[in-house]
């Protein structure tokens, strides 16, 4: 009887430890995700700057720029590869805006962005390539500024966000343990 009671307690302790570790791990993952969002935005910012210089100095087409970016060592390379592929495809009804939007939906990297950033990215793609050089540069610069501001905002709070995520993870673990055990 006493032995059975001990076993139950041991299982409870093991379960509590498991919950605590899992919740802390989830908190840690969210913290890392917040850090990765900055890396992703930073990479997008670099790509956009390259995009801008390709238009300003080489007047390259969107497809050529995307091909170039797909070969660059950037987190967004696969995304730009998808866009270049979509534009090159011999489909009857493809247009650059829809190709861009599909690439945003399909690519893993854009999953890191929050909904607002994703919407901005889609809007940016849908307006791309329809106007003269100055207007194109204006649009790209506007989006570069947007990503810069987002980066500033994220970087400012990143330490607190990471700490908060980790703390919330542990706290949630403790709370669930108390509730269950």
């Amino acid at each position, binding site marked *: 009887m006493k032995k059975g009671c001990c076993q139950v307690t041991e299982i409870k302790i093991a379960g509590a430890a498991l919950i605590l570790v899992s919740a802390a791990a989830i908190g840690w993952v969210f913290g890392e995700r917040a850090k990765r969002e900055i890396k992703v935005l930073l990479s997008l910012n670099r790509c956009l700057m390259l995009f801008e210089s390709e*238009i300003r100095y080489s*007047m*390259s*087409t*969107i*497809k*050529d720029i995307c091909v170039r970016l797909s070969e660059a060592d950037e987190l967004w390379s696969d995304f730009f590869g998808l866009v270049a592929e979509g*534009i090159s495809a*011999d489909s*009857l*009804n493809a*247009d*650059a805006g829809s190709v861009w939007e599909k690439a945003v939906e399909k690519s893993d990297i854009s999953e890191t962005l929050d909904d607002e950033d994703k919407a901005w990215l889609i809007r940016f793609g849908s307006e*791309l*390539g*329809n*106007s*003269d*050089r100055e*207007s*194109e540069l204006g649009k790209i610069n506007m989006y570069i500024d947007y990503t810069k501001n987002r980066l500033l905002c994220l970087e400012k709070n990143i330490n607190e966000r990471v700490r908060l995520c980790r703390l919330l993870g542990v706290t949630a673990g403790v709370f669930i343990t108390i509730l269950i055990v």
Partner: protein
Amino acid sequence: MDKLDEICRILRGKVQIIIKGINPDVSLLQEIRLRPVRPLIIKYNGKEYYASKSGRMTENINAAYIVSENDIRDTFHTLSEFSTYAFEEEMRQGYITVAGGHRVGIAGKTVIENGRVKNMKHISFINIRVASEVYGCANRVMPYLFDGSKNMLHTLIISPPGAGKTTLLRDIVRQVSDGSFFAGGKNVGVVDERSEIAACYHGVPQNDVGIRTDVIDGCPKAVGMMMLVRSMSPDVIAVDEIGTKEDMDAVFYAMTCGCSVIATLHGNGIEDAKKNRHIMYLFKRFLVPGFDKNGKRSIEIYDEKGMLSGDRD
């Protein structure tokens, strides 16, 4: 990719399906014309046809496919590779050269700034001119283009539009560059302001202009000639449609630098060249392509004094 694929890649939607359905012999296909709410017209073997909805060529206008504004808009976006800004200069000139060397003429509403065409918007008219190269069309003039030391003579091709000046120039460039029975291969520099000679696409000549040919594409002729002389040390410089004083100065500069020059000029015949003493002074051979009384192609060859040296079919 064959030539029909190259053309179909520019087209979109129903127009693409129709042209694929017609499957025309591209060597006889000359033009495809798109106008909004007008029949789709094809110029084939010198004759105009309507393209029907079922993908056939017909002379019956009632069976013709009516081109929509969307067809034109989508086709324009495809040929500009969804990057209108990258083709501003071409749009100012009124045409875009696409893969395969085909030239697409565009017309719409022009945007004027300081009296100059700044851009074009509302593109509503598209004319796809299928590129054609005529290998060997210069064979008969080649013996007349070299002196005793096998150096190329300064040569001017004169004819009205559509008589084949550029086609002749291209074949001469190819033969001079590759080398022929009359002289070994020479380094040729082509200044292709309107992308008509080499028809470069992404910097690569789509027409065969020979193995020793360097092309400076989309560059004003006078500037391009100077650049080529300084950078590529060509033996021969080829340039299309000279006319302005700056062009003539650049031709003279190239000649004094030891390059042979071969150029074309809009005109009706040798008489137009004789009216300009600078031209008569600079050039040693004059070629006048055109048509004889039976409508067959002919080339008249004149010497430096404007005397007929040969009249060839």
